[in-house]
């Protein structure tokens, strides 16, 4: 029965296939050139500036190129590719980008932050230059336990940050300059810096050196700015980015940051207890317990010099449809704070327009040498009891660990791979455990960000 039916339908099906073939042959010359030139242009861009691409999902044809066999990849590119690259460079490569991001932060210590950001840039990837700028506003609302414990009122504050950057190529080297200005009612920061990198061995090895200088004024809201103490920062950076193999790139860098000036927090007052009473205040002790043993309060005081060193490694590995990205930082400073920070992303392609990534981060540190959970008066038989010269109330100077886990996604909204419009969203949950601090011993926080970027 089936055989009979099939044989009866066969001529009709053959005619249908024949018509399809005719349509395909007629339409092919109209469709093929544009598709082929799109692939060539994308490939040419990748070759012209493989390290400078910043387009999310810029290379739709890349998934096809990734599917190529190793033998095909080993072959030299045909000459037509070189000609196309020249055409690209003549055709104008000015790229204008605009982006906005709104991020929100909220934690169990009653701190809430909303941060809208706008940014823009103009670049020419073939000529090798770019200029950009950004503006960010932080709106902070806080009623944290530190505020409650000092009987201070809940406060709301705004921080404004403007930043600018420029980069250009000088033969086999590239120079990137940046500067920023940050202002809030009790803090002013002005800084600038630059990094120069060199392309060696056909961009297989790119060493870089850089530095920056920052001048900050740290004060209290309402105090005249001319009495705000200063804080100066000098940062030096050196490292190298290198191609490990055709799927892996890595970098290693060393940062040395020298801070001189006022490094304490001007609002922080620490409870002082009688000699020997500190043992009655365990980690996470309540405000009421601390108040019951508090003799008086004293301002935070830390050294006026701090040298900070960080050794950082980054690695990115691209498989057929995903990129693993791992960052590791080892940190040490002259206050004897040791820290390790590990950050991992796995960027997964979901089709040609969508990217999703899980994110994990772990940070662990000890405390600075002068860290004390609670300040005890020092016994003094010859006179009034003293207190330690250096004392810190900033929990981030004590021993702690923070675990972060989250997800993110980026979606290209249009089909134009040369001028993509993208929408991104991420959410991260953070858990911090304070191992030797009063008032709180753990904090949960949620961070989310929604962004839109457009290229023209």
């Amino acid at each position, binding site marked *: 029965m089936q055989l009979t039916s099939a044989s009866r339908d066969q001529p009709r099906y053959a005619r249908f296939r024949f018509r399809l073939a005719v349509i395909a042959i007629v339409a092919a010359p109209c469709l093929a050139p544009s598709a082929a030139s799109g692939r060539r242009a994308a490939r040419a861009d*990748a070759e012209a500036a*493989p390290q400078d*691409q910043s387009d*999310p999902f810029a*290379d739709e044809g*890349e998934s096809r190129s990734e599917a190529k066999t190793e033998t095909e990849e*080993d072959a*030299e590119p045909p000459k037509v590719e070189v000609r196309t690259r020249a055409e690209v460079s003549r055709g104008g490569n000015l790229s204008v980008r605009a982006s906005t*991001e709104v*991020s929100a*932060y909220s934690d169990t210590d009653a701190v809430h932050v909303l*941060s809208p*950001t706008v940014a823009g840039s103009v670049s020419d990837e073939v000529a090798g230059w770019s200029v950009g700028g950004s503006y960010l506003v932080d709106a902070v609302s806080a009623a944290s336990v530190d505020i409650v414990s000092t009987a201070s009122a809940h406060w709301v504050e705004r921080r404004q*940050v403007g930043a600018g950057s420029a980069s250009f190529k000088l033969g086999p080297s590239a120079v990137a300059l940046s*500067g920023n200005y*940050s202002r*809030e009612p009790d803090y*002013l*920061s002005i800084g600038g810096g630059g990094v120069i990198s060199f392309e060696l061995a056909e961009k297989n*090895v790119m060493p870089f050196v850089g*530095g*920056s200088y*920052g001048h900050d004024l740290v004060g*209290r809201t309402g105090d005249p700015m001319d009495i705000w103490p200063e804080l100066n*920062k000098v940062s030096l950076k050196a490292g190298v980015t*290198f191609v*490990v*193999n*055709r*799927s892996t*790139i*890595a970098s290693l*860098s*060393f940062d040395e*940051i020298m801070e001189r000036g006022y490094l304490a*927090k001007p609002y922080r007052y620490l409870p002082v207890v009688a000699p020997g009473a500190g043992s009655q205040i365990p980690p996470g002790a309540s405000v009421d317990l601390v108040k019951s043993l508090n003799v008086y309060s004293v301002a935070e005081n830390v050294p006026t010099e701090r040298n900070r060193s*960080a*050794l*950082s490694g*980054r690695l*990115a590995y691209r498989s057929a449809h995903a990129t693993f990205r791992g960052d590791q*930082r080892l*940190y040490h400073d002259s206050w004897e*704070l040791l*820290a390790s*920070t590990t*950050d991992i992303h796995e960027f997964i392609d979901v089709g040609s327009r969508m*990217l999703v990534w899980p994110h994990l981060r772990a*940070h662990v*540190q000890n405390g*600075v040498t002068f860290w004390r959970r609670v300040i005890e008066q020092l016994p003094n038989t010859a006179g009034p009891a003293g207190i330690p010269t250096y004392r810190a109330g900033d929990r*981030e*100077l004590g021993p*702690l660990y*923070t675990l972060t886990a989250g997800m993110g996604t980026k979606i290209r909204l249009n089909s134009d791979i040369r001028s993509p419009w993208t929408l991104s969203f991420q959410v991260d949950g*953070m858990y*911090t455990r304070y191992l030797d601090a009063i008032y709180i011993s753990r904090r949960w*926080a949620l*961070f989310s*960000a929604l962004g839109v970027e457009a290229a023209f």
Partner: protein
Amino acid sequence: MNRPCAILLLALLGLSGAACTHVPPFQRGRLAHPTMLLDETAGPGESHVYAIHEGAVGGGAAVEGGCGCN
């Protein structure tokens, strides 16, 4: 920077360089993917949260802004 750190850094740089293979430009299709850029993965808001939460800095942008955490 003290001498042990400098020696360690130079040793790591030397080892990392020796571990690499030369990849010509026409074999860098995967390396050209936007996710292979070794820049900051965190945006401005996220970077600021880490700067406040963690006692360590470095390894990121060369210039850092104000505190926002007095």
